[in-house]
């Protein structure tokens, strides 16, 4: 549910001349392992048959209790080894929390998505609002 909201929000703002977004299909070879990220934004190549995995720019994982160790401590490390990936966003499934890692030369610089709830995916010119990504139950007092 969160993943499709993220894909929709990214798709709406994306410069489609330069980028494309897809969910659960791209295989990334990184850090000696193969990962299929929840969401990848990549630069499409002129060759339509080329593997989307060759130009990933932003990767998003939805962090659940079953995947949090892999998402936070293994994929986080593996994605950092692919220079083309400029930002790695982790969005928690069960609480309104996100951590954004942005490449700085040799490593990541992480930031908590603070009270503003704004997630700046500067690498692809997209801004997400954390609160928009979660289902809102009608009649609940959540704002």
């Amino acid at each position, binding site marked *: 549910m969160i993943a499709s909201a993220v894909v929709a929000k990214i798709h709406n703002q994306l410069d489609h001349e330069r980028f494309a977004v897809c969910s659960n299909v791209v295989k990334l070879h990184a850090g000696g392992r193969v990962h299929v990220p929840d969401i990848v934004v990549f630069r499409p190549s002129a060759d339509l048959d080329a593997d989307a995995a060759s130009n990933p720019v932003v990767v998003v994982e939805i962090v659940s209790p079953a995947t949090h160790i892999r998402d936070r*401590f293994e994929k*986080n*490390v593996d994605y950092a080894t692919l220079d083309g990936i400029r930002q790695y966003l982790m969005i928690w499934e069960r609480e309104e929390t996100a951590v954004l*890692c942005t490449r700085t030369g*040799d*490593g990541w610089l992480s930031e908590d998505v603070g009270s503003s709830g704004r997630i700046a995916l500067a690498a692809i010119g997209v801004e997400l609002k954390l609160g928009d990504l979660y289902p809102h139950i009608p009649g609940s007092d959540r704002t």
Partner: protein
Amino acid sequence: MMLTRPSWTLGTFVLWEREQDTRFEFDGTGPVAVNGGSLRHTRIALSMATALDKRLDFGRFEVVRGDARIIVNGHLRYPDVVVFNHTDHMDADIVHSPIVVVEVLSRSTRRVDQYDKNVDYAATPSIQHYVMLSQTRRYAVVCSRGPDGWSAREMNGDEPITLEAVQAVIPFDEIYRRITFGDGFL
């Protein structure tokens, strides 16, 4: 604390940091002040350092608590506990090939410990194990280098932490001695 200056490199930072009265880490963008930990933080780090020290081969390994600069992935860090090969660092001012690194997580540093430093440590081939210790419960995440890459394991205190590279098995009771768990994050 982040100081602004045109552009920092690891080299200029190392020279600058030596002249300072307090400690700073270098995260690739600029100096970040290292603050002292709480009493609880210090207790856990000291217990972990002591537990390691008494198990490791004295002739080969050295355990340092808090005072060692290490260079990892182009950054300079001061881990809470670090294990390195003693004979490789007889006159060293900076530890260039750490083997085990331990961080005790606290509210103000846990994000950097979990995400930024984990990447730095994974990118440093000499590092075989990275242990992140909670302060609020008997809980650790242990990352280890193996044939399948950098793998992470969650530990809830029911079995000891095994650090194969230095042949140490450390029970949680030793790491958390003198620690009581109440409510809230201290």
